[in-house]
Each structure stands twice: as C-alpha cells, then as structure tokens.
C-alpha cells in the first residue's frame, strides 16, 4: 500500500483574469505524490508553485484538469468534509492567526465547525504534539514568538487529523535556529502520523532536508522532477535547475570544524 498515490495532479491549469489580459499562472502541471511521501515544489516567485497549493486545498476554485486527493476527485466547490482530508500551513505566522482569538479559540474553531466533541482534551493534545506548553492556551498571538505561532498554526492544521498537509514556505519567515526546530517538528509529525507532505519553498536546502522527491517549477510549468539524491549531487536535467542549485550551494560555507 505504500505506493498508492495520495495526490494525483494531471494537466492542471489555472488562469487569472480574462480575455487578452489572462495570465496562465499554472500551465499543464502533472505530478503524483505517494501516501506517506514528502514531496517538494521549488521555484522562484511567480513560478506558480503556491497556486498549485491553493488549488489542492480548495482556496483557488477556478482551474482545469484532473486532480485526485486521497482517492477521491477534487471537487470544484469543496464541501465541509473535504477539509478533513487536507490542511495547510501558511508562510507568515504573524498573518495566519486571528489576532483577537486566543490560542484556545483558534484551535477549537475547526472542531466547532465540524461538530467534534472533547474539545478541551483535543486542544490540549494538539498543543503537546507540537511541543507547546498547555499554559499557552489562553494567550493571544501577539504574546507569542514567531516560532511559537508557527507551532500553533501546525497544531491547528493537524487538529482535524488530515492525511495530507500542504506547507507553503513554512519556515521562510523564521530565524534559522527556529527554522531548525520547526523542520524537526514537521519531520517527527510526519513519521508519527503517517502524513503526506507537499512542501513549497524557494530554499533548496530546506526542501532537500524534508523531501524525497522534488519538482522544479518555472513560469507556471513543471520543468523537471528529480530525487533528493540527484539534487544533492547537482545532477539535474535542465539548465534552470542547475542554475537554482548553483545559486543555492554557491553561498554555502564549509562545514564548521568538528568539536565536542
């Protein structure tokens, strides 16, 4: 069962605007993500990678093509129970939490929407799962650091126990030391819950750390898919991917000398 596809995207296209001004944000993109796999989408701004995520979570409702999620076709206007299968973590932890809601209210809201009981216990467990002290429950977002907010956002995404987690640049607004904590947390949660990840990032090192297969997007098209080993070796098929790898690894400094 490990090889059954969790996400199938076939010839996906998204247009913004109409008539002559219409822009093809995503243009004939196809890929598959297996159950339990972590798949990376990389590309520069405007490559369409975030738009693919917005289609998959039902935020972008105008698209053409065929998309299957967890064995069922993606509806154009998703109903409520669709969202029990897929959730998303956003880039900016300062903008993705409601400023007037306590952490408790933010985490209880999805449970209330879906009429799920035992909210106190579930909120408590969700906080523990992401490594937050339950004493944070009644704080407001502005009383938390960026990393703590991102943990709350992850807890909120996981509280509905989805099978697919979409990650939109989940660490690019964080400091490096906090980024390491969040990446470790995401890796652990995937192991423990058998989640399928689709990670969008511009940072090849982050994608290589978390993902086993990577797709490179440029100008709305998927130009190349490669394994993480190929990425680390720099053996890419297209010039564009090689450029991206060079731009990322050129700056990387030597490994610090080993010490105790």
């Amino acid at each position, binding site marked *: 069962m490990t090889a059954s596809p969790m996400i199938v995207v076939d010839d996906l296209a998204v247009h913004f605007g109409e008539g002559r001004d219409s822009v093809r944000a995503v243009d004939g993109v196809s890929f598959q993500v297996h159950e339990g796999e972590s798949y990376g989408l990389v590309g520069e*701004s405007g490559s369409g990678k975030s738009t693919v995520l917005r289609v998959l979570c039902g935020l972008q409702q105008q698209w053409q093509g065929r998309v299957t999620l967890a064995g069922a076709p993606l509806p154009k206007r998703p109903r409520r129970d669709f969202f029990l299968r897929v959730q998303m973590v956003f880039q900016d932890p300062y903008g993705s939490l409601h400023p007037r809601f306590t952490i408790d209210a933010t985490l209880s809201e999805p449970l209330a929407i879906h009429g799920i009981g035992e909210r106190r216990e579930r909120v408590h467990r969700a906080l523990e799962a992401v490594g937050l002290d339950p004493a944070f429950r009644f704080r407001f977002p502005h009383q938390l650091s*960026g990393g703590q907010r991102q943990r709350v956002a992850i807890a909120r995404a996981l509280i509905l126990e989805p099978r697919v987690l979409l990650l939109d640049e989940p660490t690019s607004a964080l400091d*490096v*030391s906090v980024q390491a904590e969040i990446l470790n947390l995401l890796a652990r949660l995937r192991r423990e819950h058998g989640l399928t990840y689709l990670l969008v990032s511009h940072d090849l090192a982050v994608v290589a750390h978390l993902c086993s297969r990577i797709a490179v997007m440029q100008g709305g098209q998927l130009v190349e898919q490669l394994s*993480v080993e190929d990425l*680390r070796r720099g053996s890419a098929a297209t010039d564009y991917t090689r450029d991206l790898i060079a*731009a990322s690894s050129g700056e*990387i400094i030597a490994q610090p000398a080993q010490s105790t």
Partner: protein
Amino acid sequence: MAALLNVDNLQVAFRGPRGEVPAVRGVSFSLGREKLGIVGESGSGKSTIGRAILRLLPDSARVTADRLTFEGQDLLGLSPRALRNLRGRHITMVMQDPRYSLNPVLPVGDQIAETLRVHGAGGRGRELYRKVLDILEAVQIRDPERVYRAYPHELSGGMGQRAMIAMMLIADPRLLIADEPTSALDVTVRRQILSILDDLVSRRGMGLILISHDLNLVAGFCDRVLILYAGRVVEEIEARNLHACRHPYSRGLLASLPRLEQPVGELATLQRDPAWLDGPVYRFGEEVSR
C-alpha cells in the same frame, strides 16, 4: 588605513510602557573601505545599529556612545541640518523592500532625475535623460528606457532594488548601509544584486555594512562579520573563517542550517544559554572578556 566609521560602546534603549528596553548593548567596531556583515536573528538589534548610525531612530530611543564618528565627525552631536546633509550625500541606506522606499506615484526615471538635480549633477532635457539611462545601465538594467517610465509597483523586486541602489549611488556616498537588501528576492536575482554591490564597493572604494539574518550570504559576500546576540557582538571574525567560529551561539547557528550537500537526520537546535548575555566574547578566534 584611516577608519571611515568608528563605533565605540554604542547603547540604544527604547522607552516603553514597562520601562526602558535595551536593544543594543555596548557595540563597538570600526569600518574601513571594506564589506562588514552584521548578522543576527530577529530582535538581536542588528537593524537598530544601522538606524542609530544614520540617526533614524524614533524619539522613544535613547542612543549613547563613547564614540560614534564618521570620518572624524561626531554623529551624535550633529545638527539636524548637518545630519540631513550627511544622509543621502555621504552615508546612504538600502532597505529590504524598494517599493516602500520609492515614491509610488512618480515614474522611477523621474525620481532618479530629481535626485540628480538635487545633487547638482543634473543638466537639462535630453542630457538629463541620457544621464539617468546611464545610471540605470550601470546597475545592469538591460532595458533602461522601460524602467525609466515604469512606476515602482510595475517593477519586479530585483528591478526595484537595482533602481533603488542606482539612486542611492548618485551622491557618490562613502558609506552604504544595506539592511536585508536581498531577502525579498529570489536566489538567482539575489546573486546579481550582490555582485552589483560588490562591484560598486571595490570600484568606488566605499565602505559597506550589510545587515542580514542569512549567515551563508554574509559569509560568502563580506570581508568581516559581526555576530550579534541580544544586542551584543558575541563574535567578530573574518568571513572566510566563519566556519571556525568559537562562540557557542555562532556555532549553534551554523549547525542549525540545513545543507544541500550534507544530509542530516535531525537538525541541531540551538539551546540558548543565559550566560551568553554577559559572558565572554570572541574576536578573530581569541576569547576576549569584557
């Protein structure tokens, strides 16, 4: 080599509802015609240092220093008029997002022309237009005529940052402070902007302070690096030796970076030690207690 900028025991504190909050605590460094990197995480006070040098902090900030001089001129004692003259003419700043620093309702070319006029290097009509195009070409903008007519929001991030740098350089400043100049840009564009900056610094003999959260970027670009923790320089080191840094904070930062070439199962996380607030600091690999 005479130092361009001397900073000795710079202290900045912000008055808040719960008393004064220190942001910069005793930072000292001097800068010649070189590229100095200031690295730190959010809240470390790195941007505050840049703004303190340019005296751009709000009134709620209390700035003191044993010495804060630019080419021998005391920056703390300058009149507002002298300060205005200094800013923009001798010291300039490049911010993270050029779209906030450029006037949104004027075409980019007109803004550059205006700056030229202010600095008395104008000319008129065709001559001025040619000059602006030359300046845009100098920052490797390939279609300067389009960029001349474009409004800031019509430019991509990289294009806007180039235009901004072009404008900053008209006055031929001797010190450029760049606060996260490339963090809003894509990796491939980032390199181009940095190479433009590098080229300008070495050709014009300017001093450059690059403020960034990105260790890799600073290590690859600067000559010397200051690592800032809680408003204090915990380590000063040549950029090429950054991998051999000694302060546990610097080492922890380096270890927590995921690397393309070297996969690890779990990333090392930073355990913050309260002793770092006042503990020993390192200069070029030597422990200095102060």
